[in-house]
């Protein structure tokens, strides 16, 4: 029991710091205070985003660990059990760091932006209390989960897995409680005309509450997978023995697999989020997508291109370790160029005004055609198809295709050809119809693609059913540059999260709570994109540094593992 108390000490001292900040804030006279040299806004920005990244991490790790643990339990795979435990080890310290950052963030934002925080503390007193209770429970379960790992083995493993489920449920509740505040800021509801919260229930279940929950939940799993892969890559690069290399190579592959499998759903969660923003307030949607913030999407396109192509690149290089993979190597350059070109189309800005003559909207006949929405939808569809083909090649590489099953292969070719043809026809038509029709067409195209991809996998199952393998996968036989790709993908993921975190906050423009509580401080405007990227990069590096500290503190001798 004393161990539990010791572990909770950090949490409680952080809560104490936060509470001191809150009490102090209510005795302050002015609306805003400034922070010397690096400005109040930057302080709160860095603290909030780093805390959010850590919060994502401590939500991602339990989900990831649970998936791997269940996988290991079901397949009796020792390696998976070891991987799960390796990551569960990180949890206690990560919780402490998150708590420290959270305490500092609360303290700083109450003291620097008392006007806003006092407003929030009024109606949301109850949720603050709920939050404190939930994180105490969560931190207790983490403690139990980690300390009972060795005790609850064998027959009792199921109990331990149930504990993991409980941890994830409470963790998700904590995230949802925190999302109440963020989503309320963006799309306040239950407000009377003079800006007083009248219905706490509709304030909680506002327009963007569920989209934010879903988006963050999916993104967190993906985030966990990619961070695991990056950690594996790091260990791979520093390991000296073949045995270690084999283990970390396998770990990187598993992490990447979890990351990509969930990442595919992210765009749709994003569309849902965007749709709700539009239906809450079309003007905010326009600001976000086409107005003052449109540059965020340009950067996001680049970052996502790096994540997508980097992941595929890793999988392509992975063919080297699959016996028989060399058969497909000659097709890879085509696939690679295809992805590069589709992402170039996707990232092309609609209007890139570079000189005063262009201000009236000078648009080039070619890039003007590429810059509009129609080809971008086609480009994204084709990029997804490229990822699917990469997966198919990976599945097929190590196997002999049984005789007499050529038909299924040709069916797959026909389906892939159909997807390309449909996309090109839709692209051609998109230029000739109204935008409302185009959006409908793109939805049908996407549905068609989903069905066709389902069939491709169905035929793949038939094709490879009981196929003889060409040889064991040679884990560890992997080029070093593939590991750099994994690190770059993970860092880009962190960067993308920090970028869109900024975007979500910036969408409110000069409002603390959109349309209700105006920001009248001297930081009411938005910095230029260049300045924002500097701070986002700083946050990313700070997070990586803290993550390095966590890994360092939990590092153990090899014998124990």
């Amino acid at each position, binding site marked *: 029991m004393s161990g539990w108390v010791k572990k909770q000490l950090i949490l409680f001292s952080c809560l104490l710091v936060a509470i001191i900040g809150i009490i102090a804030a209510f005795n302050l006279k002015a609306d805003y205070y400034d922070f010397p040299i690096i400005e109040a806004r930057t302080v709160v920005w860095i603290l909030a985003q780093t805390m959010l990244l850590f919060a994502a991490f401590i939500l991602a790790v339990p989900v990831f660990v649970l998936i791997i643990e269940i996988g290991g339990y079901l397949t009796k795979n020792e390696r998976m059990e070891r991987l799960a435990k390796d990551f569960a080890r990180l949890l206690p310290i990560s919780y402490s760091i998150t708590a420290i950052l959270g305490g500092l963030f609360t303290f700083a934002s109450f003291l620097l932006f008392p006007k806003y925080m006092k407003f929030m503390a009024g109606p949301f007193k109850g949720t603050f209390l709920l939050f404190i209770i939930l994180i105490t429970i969560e931190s207790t379960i983490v403690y139990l989960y980690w300390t009972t790992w060795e005790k609850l083995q064998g027959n009792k493993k199921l109990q331990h897995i149930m504990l993991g489920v409980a941890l994830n449920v409470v963790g998700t509740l904590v995230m949802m409680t925190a999302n109440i505040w963020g989503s309320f800021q963006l799309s306040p509801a239950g407000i009377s005309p003079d800006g007083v919260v009248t219905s706490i229930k509709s304030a909680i279940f506002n327009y963007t509450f569920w989209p934010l929950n879903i988006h963050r939940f999916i993104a967190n799993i993906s985030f966990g997978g990619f961070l695991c892969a990056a950690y594996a890559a790091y260990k791979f690069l520093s390991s000296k023995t073949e045995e270690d290399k084999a283990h970390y190579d396998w770990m990187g592959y598993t992490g990447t697999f979890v990351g990509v499998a969930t990442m595919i759903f992210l765009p749709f969660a994003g569309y849902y989020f965007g749709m709700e923003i539009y239906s809450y*307030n*079309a*003007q905010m949607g*326009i*600001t976000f997508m*086409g*107005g*003052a913030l*449109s540059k965020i999407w340009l950067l996001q396109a680049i970052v996502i291109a790096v994540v997508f*192509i980097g992941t595929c*690149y890793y999988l*392509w*290089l992975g063919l080297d370790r699959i016996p028989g993979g060399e*058969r497909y*190597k000659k097709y*890879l*350059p085509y696939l*690679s*160029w295809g992805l*590069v*070109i589709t*992402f*170039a189309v996707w*990232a*092309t800005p*609609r*209007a*890139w*005004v*570079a*000189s*005063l*003559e*262009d*201000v*009236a*909207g*000078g*648009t*080039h*006949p*070619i*890039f*003007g055609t590429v810059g509009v*929405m129609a080809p971008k939808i086609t480009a994204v569809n084709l990029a997804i198809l490229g990822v699917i083909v990469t997966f198919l090649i990976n599945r097929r590489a190590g196997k*002999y*295709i049984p*005789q007499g099953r050529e038909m299924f292969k040709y069916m797959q070719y026909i389906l892939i050809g159909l997807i390309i043809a449909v996309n090109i026809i839709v692209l051609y038509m998109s230029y000739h119809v*109204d*935008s*409302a029709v185009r*959006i409908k067409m793109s939805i049908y195209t996407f549905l068609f693609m989903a069905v066709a991809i389902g069939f491709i996998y169905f035929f793949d199952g038939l094709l490879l059913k009981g196929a003889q393998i060409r040889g064991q996968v040679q884990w560890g036989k992997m*080029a070093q*540059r593939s590991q750099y790709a994994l690190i770059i993908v993970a860092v880009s993921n962190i960067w993308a999260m920090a970028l869109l975190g900024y975007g979500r906050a910036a969408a409110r423009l000069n409002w603390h709570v959109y349309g209700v509580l105006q920001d009248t401080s001297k930081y009411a405007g938005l910095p*230029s994109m260049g300045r924002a990227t500097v701070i986002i990069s700083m946050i990313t590096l700070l997070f990586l540094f803290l993550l390095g500290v966590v890994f360092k503190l939990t590092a153990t001798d090899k014998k124990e593992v």
Partner: protein
Amino acid sequence: MDEKMEEKNNQSEDVKIKEATGVKSIPFAVIAVGIIVFAYIFMRYIVQPPFPATLTNFFMMFILAGVLLHITLDEKKIEDIMLFFSFTKKEPMPWDIVRYSVVVIVPLLIASNVYSAYKVTYAPPAELFSPHVTPPEWVVNMKVPEYAVDPNKWESKYIEEGRLIYEDNCVPCHGKDADGKGPMASAITYPASPTNFKEAGTIAQLPITYVYWRVKDGGITDKQFKSAMPGWEEELSEDDMWRVIMYTYTKAGVKPRTWAE
């Protein structure tokens, strides 16, 4: 097994072809350099009008990434490139020219980029660079009069009325042909020249209510957007404004967008 046989056949065929033709294939390094150079020449000199410099650089980023991926996908290609540029292997004359020019030109390019990045140039104020100004809420939610809703059903009598209003009020700046080259246009260079409606980036990109807002209120004088366009709220009736907008779209030969996007 079928596939095994197939593979062997393929391999031997490849070897046979190479032996039979005896042609030395172009080194991959030359192809890579060729792709990069051709892409740049294509964007800057072949396409008319050429891509703006900033956009060319943007696309070159993708081309470079693509070439890099292509090379690093195969261990053998990396070795080939290293060998080619380390000048250890003898190459025929044309390839020699290629590798020497790369070695000379790349540092020069980097130097010129550094120079132009630090050269002080006059740059117009940055706030002008936002072509889409965020409209107020009433613009997004406003109801368009029935006769102006569907561009395919605009009646010619309204458009004709619009023409008269346009010629009375808009021609001095926006020009008879809606190309932004009216008799007064040359006098307005600050903060922006009169809009050329025929350009794809202007009214063709905007919903009709957005254009209505700009006609009604004119240049907005806060930091978000500045222009010399006067507001016409007091001069023209609502119907007049809708008609002149319909005429402008017709004259420019484009159609408005819808908010749905």
